[in-house]
């Protein structure tokens, strides 16, 4: 499948100029098509087929996320999303004042293009791990569930093998690794999940840092990591089909991490039966 880029071309701030530069470079280097946000806003029909038939990369300048909102309004589902303002923060750089691209902004655009291409390679499933050192760890599907019933809702919670934080994110641990996903309770609260944005492979997180974002038709959810460690894999199946989290929340893991301090992390998590008590309370408070 070919790719198209929908980028902020905004003149509101420097990040818009960077987003525009990223789009041009990606188009030049990969042959991707460009969707002009201004035209898309004015004449959505022009891009209807292009958006339906290609892998969509959305590059937003700032958190207003105009490009992402235009994509959503057009009914398009992005395969990848990038936010320049976050990349600026991650890089520790301060962009030059004004809208023209200085050396720092150009360097940042280069980095973002490389990250997009690396994430694409990872999502293709060929080299989704951290390389040859990334050994496979077996994780078993849960067998027994506790079911919390509230009104017409039923929330399933694995009795063993899963640990939860208070932000409704689980960790399944084995072989020095943890897989991370969200609970049945949270997927039902979010309703139809439309996008999963995992962090880059190699990202190091502390317990309770974000390990990505989930977007649904109703809300945006920050995945608060239950563990500390380094992201070694993102689940390509979930990237391709975000709705699999709704269908199988305890099988549809989002990222896998190499654990850094599991014993310490564990002390601040609860097991399945304790989480069931929390879910009962949360459901009553909703």
């Amino acid at each position, binding site marked *: 499948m070919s790719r198209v880029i929908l980028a902020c071309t905004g003149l*509101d701030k420097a990040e818009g100029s960077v987003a525009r530069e990223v789009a041009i470079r990606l188009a030049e280097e990969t042959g991707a098509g460009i969707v002009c946000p201004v035209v898309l806003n004015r004449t959505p029909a022009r891009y209807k087929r292009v958006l339906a038939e290609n892998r969509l990369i959305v590059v937003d300048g700032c*958190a*207003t996320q105009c490009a992402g909102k235009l994509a959503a309004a057009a009914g398009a589902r992005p395969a990848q999303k990038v936010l320049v303002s976050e990349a600026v923060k991650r890089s520790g750089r301060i962009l030059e004042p004004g809208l023209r691209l200085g050396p720092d902004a150009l360097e940042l655009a280069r980095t973002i293009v490389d990250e997009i291409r690396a994430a694409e390679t990872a999502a293709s499933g060929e080299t989704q791990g951290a390389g040859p050192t990334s050994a496979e760890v077996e994780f078993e599907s849960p067998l027994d569930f506790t079911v919390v019933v509230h009104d017409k809702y039923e929330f399933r919670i694995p009795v063993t093998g899963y640990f939860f934080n*208070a932000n409704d994110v689980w960790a399944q641990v084995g072989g020095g690794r943890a897989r991370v996903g969200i609970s049945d309770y949270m997927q039902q609260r979010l309703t139809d999940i439309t996008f999963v944005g995992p962090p880059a492979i190699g990202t190091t997180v502390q317990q*309770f840092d974000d390990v990505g974002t989930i977007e649904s038709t109703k809300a945006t959810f920050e995945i608060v990591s239950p563990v500390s460690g380094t992201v070694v894999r993102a689940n390509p199946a979930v990237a391709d089909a975000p709705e699999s989290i709704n269908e199988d929340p305890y099988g549809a893991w989002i990222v896998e991490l190499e654990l850094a301090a599991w014993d310490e992390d564990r002390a*601040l998590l609860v*097991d399945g039966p304790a989480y069931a008590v929390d879910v009962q309370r949360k459901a009553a408070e909703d």
Partner: protein
Amino acid sequence: MSDITFMGVPRPKIPWAPTIDYEKCDFCMECDDFCPHRVFERRDGEVGLVVANPDNCVVFCRACAKTCGPDALSFPEKPEIVALIKRLRSEEDESHSEDGRE
């Protein structure tokens, strides 16, 4: 709901909530539209938005800041909050040593 807890700690003891930088905020209300927990409230007058219900804010969630174009929302440092929660939990454990919950 004064007895709401987070990780076993009374929620009001955890100072996790957004701070609005009024030098940057343009009162676009994206954050208020986004947040389902009614952390923000709109006001008439020059300051059109306030953090009215900080204890409604989900501890460790910073999703509203990701909707903020002018980058006007900030949160406490997570490691400091984690350290505070750990300390408060150990104090709770000491004062409720018969509480069976882990």
